[in-house]
């Protein structure tokens, strides 16, 4: 039976079909808590790429290269080939699993299938295995490949597919494993790659906690701690490396996002009612009514970054000059005001913070014009 929210979300979407956000969608929405636009789109089931291409008609700015997708698939396949042989090797090498802890269940598409009924079967089998582990069944698997779990938003389950779940016989419950073909360069590994992988894992951790809560288990946070395993790629080949990552902050941000979602739905409906009763999020001016919080890091994960930057620029927002300047000019508010202080024009500063910034800007300005041959 569709939840009462189904209809509300359908009305919000208008003619647009619902898109599953997946772990990536959830983690992106939680990255920028100040951006109501991204959060509303996510909960309504509209991806930023669809908003950019079909609503704002800016052209799609999302999409991976087929080569990157292929490399990722090949790397994953190499890890899970022969019943997860390489993954087991990694865990044994890290003394996380012993030789006897080799019970593996493969729920991947290759094994089960990709039809809708197969997806349901994967989900039900995953739940059964999780219950086994929770009940302390000694025959519960140590490695579940491509389980299918769900995270609930407005009571509506959204399917997630972590790459694996792992647990030794002595572990109370499973830990999320994400396999990524990002090159492992130790301390030089790309921070944005790591960030993305950790955040995706955090979504699965929250989903597991929800499952435990729904099963009446107390203290799900202790049973599913905010930790995940990442398997990254050794450059130049298809061998993996295992890393355990603490993801407390990431899990917290996902949980905070989920807590805020009831208000988002009400806000979205309120905006539509106010602006254009009967319309939907499919109209640009409705989307423009939602506050955004442009940051230079938005470009990393959101297809609407360019549009938001234009909007921030038209709002005279110092965020267009970078995060550091946004923070420096927080007491002033706008770029125009900062320029007024720089040139000693316009309304004089009234608050102490403004006065201090005005002095600082004027001094810096006069020093800069002194030392470079052409002034500002």
């Amino acid at each position, binding site marked *: 039976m569709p939840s009462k929210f189904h209809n509300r979300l359908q009305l919000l979407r208008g003619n647009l079909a619902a898109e599953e956000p997946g772990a990536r969608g959830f983690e992106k929405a939680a990255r920028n808590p100040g951006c109501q636009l991204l959060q509303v789109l996510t909960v309504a089931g509209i991806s930023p790429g669809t908003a950019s291409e079909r609503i704002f008609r800016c052209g799609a700015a999302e*999409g991976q290269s087929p*080569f990157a*997708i292929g490399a990722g698939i090949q790397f994953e396949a190499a890890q899970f080939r022969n019943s997860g042989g390489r993954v087991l090797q990694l865990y044994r090498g890290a003394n996380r699993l012993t030789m006897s802890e080799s019970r593996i269940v493969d729920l991947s598409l290759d094994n089960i299938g990709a039809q809708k009924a197969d997806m349901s079967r994967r989900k039900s089998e995953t739940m059964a295995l999780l219950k086994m582990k929770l009940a302390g069944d000694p025959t519960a698997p140590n490695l579940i490949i491509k389980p299918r779990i769900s995270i609930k938003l407005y009571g509506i389950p959204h399917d997630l597919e972590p790459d694996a779940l792992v647990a030794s016989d002595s572990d109370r419950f499973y830990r999320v494993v994400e396999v990524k073909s*990002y090159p492992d360069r130790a301390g030089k590994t790309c921070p944005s790659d790591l960030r993305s992988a950790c955040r995706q894992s955090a979504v699965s951790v929250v989903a597991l906690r929800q499952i435990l809560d729904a099963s009446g288990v107390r203290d799900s946070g202790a049973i599913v701690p905010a930790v995940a395993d990442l398997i990254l790629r050794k450059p130049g080949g298809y061998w993996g490396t295992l890393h355990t990552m603490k993801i407390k902050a990431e899990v917290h941000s996902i949980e905070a996002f989920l807590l805020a979602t009831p208000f988002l739905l009400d806000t979205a409906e309120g905006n539509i009612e106010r602006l254009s009763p009967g319309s939907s999020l499919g109209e640009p001016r409705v989307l423009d009514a939602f506050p955004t919080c442009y940051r230079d890091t938005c*470009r990393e994960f959101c297809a609407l970054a360019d549009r938001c930057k234009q909007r921030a620029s038209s709002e005279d927002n110092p965020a*267009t*000059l970078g995060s550091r300047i946004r923070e420096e000019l927080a007491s002033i508010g706008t770029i125009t005001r900062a320029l007024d202080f720089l040139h000693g024009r316009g309304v004089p500063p009234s608050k102490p913070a403004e006065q201090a910034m005005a002095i600082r*800007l004027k001094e*810096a300005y006069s020093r800069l014009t002194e030392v*470079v041959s052409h002034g500002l």
Partner: protein
Amino acid sequence: MGCDLDLVGRLGAYERGRAVRIASHQKVAIHPSAMVMSPVAMAGEDASIHVIAIGNIGISPAIRFVPDPRMRDLGDRLYGELGMLFWEYFLGCRDAGTYPQIWVSSRPATTLLDILADVLRSPRRDPMVRRFGDCLAYMSERHPVAGQQALMTATGALRQHFVTGQSPEEDEHLGKLLSWISPSPSETAVESAARVGKIPMGTKTDPKFDRDVLDPLLRKYENARRRGDTPAFLAAIERTIGASLESVAFPIYEGIQRAIRELSAASLPMMTDLPALEAKEIAAFNSFMEAIDAGFSIPKSDKPKVAARKLEEREDAEKNLRAAIILGTTTGQVAANAKGEVVSGKVTDVQVIPVGIRGRMHRVEMQSEQRVLRVRAGDRLYRMDEPRLCFLVTGVQRTGRTTTVSMRIRSGMRSIGAPSIGSFLDLAPEVPDWGNDMQIRMKINRRLANLPWTHMSGNTPRAIRKGVTPLDPLADLEMLR
């Protein structure tokens, strides 16, 4: 205040609609025989070069590519060719008594070279491929060292001299950065940056290009190979692949050339210590070549002592560069003065105090009106126009807007002499020391003559129990050594 110059510069650039110069001196060397290159990797294959445009400053590039870098034999052929090219260049630099310099577009290119440096030095690879890896390893080792002149990014070099009216992250896109530095007359810098921002200027191709152009071509090539089609047919497909890849690599190469032209066109005087930085580069390069001649190469991971030495050398390089910028550039001095690191003021008193039978100590007092001053007793200060004269701060007293700094001359009295009363002094917190490599090595060797217990296998020292007073606390401390 360096941050304030950047802040004010960005505001000004935003207002003017074009980049603002924030450097009074050129801080990077543009070596006349430098190589310029724009390597592009295949998406998902971070340790590959799909196409590379390579040449010298002001010269059109040679384009080298492999039809499919996922085929190891094809990739190695390209790396072998590049290995020969690089090695010839390195040998030429050694014979000329200079150092190699390579220009790439931005940070992702240095990352790609770093990854390749590790992967290509596998013992199973062809010797010339490994030699290419050695050359890249040298460049990648030098890159994090402050003030190095070996591996230059066009974005990094430009950003040391210009600020734009966009975020620093956007400045890492070479096309956007150049749009601000020399905007086209027919559109604003913002419009131009938005337009060119869609053109890849790093090391990856656009996903749409991959989907619509490259993927179909590579499938055609793969199928042709599998079918055993004629060499002529394969060559024709390869040419088509090459032409499409060239359209990616060439604009990046041109962007780097344009960046070098913009820097040269600014016609800034060289930073005073730039020759010293280049001399360091030559010394590092000679050391590398000697090691190669002796059959050694840069290890993939360092042992603890070597790592400690390299860390110390990097810290020293940072300190030297900081000091060089303060002493050798006007903007550096102004920024340091505003931060309170450079003390400027008037000498109000000089006293000569006898010490012992024949010794003398010179005490100097100066007063500064600087609003911000970061100086305290025990600090050493160096006279900026005569760095050999060193003062030791003995006291700092602030009264209203005036700060009185009491000092004694620590060194340089005989060669420079005490300042006269009424003269103005600018004192810097540090001066570069370009010849202390041997001292650093000796210091590290001395300190690490015995490896600390944290780096030794075996038993850790026993913990001291709480509440129990040790009979011999010094012995317990000694055990921790």
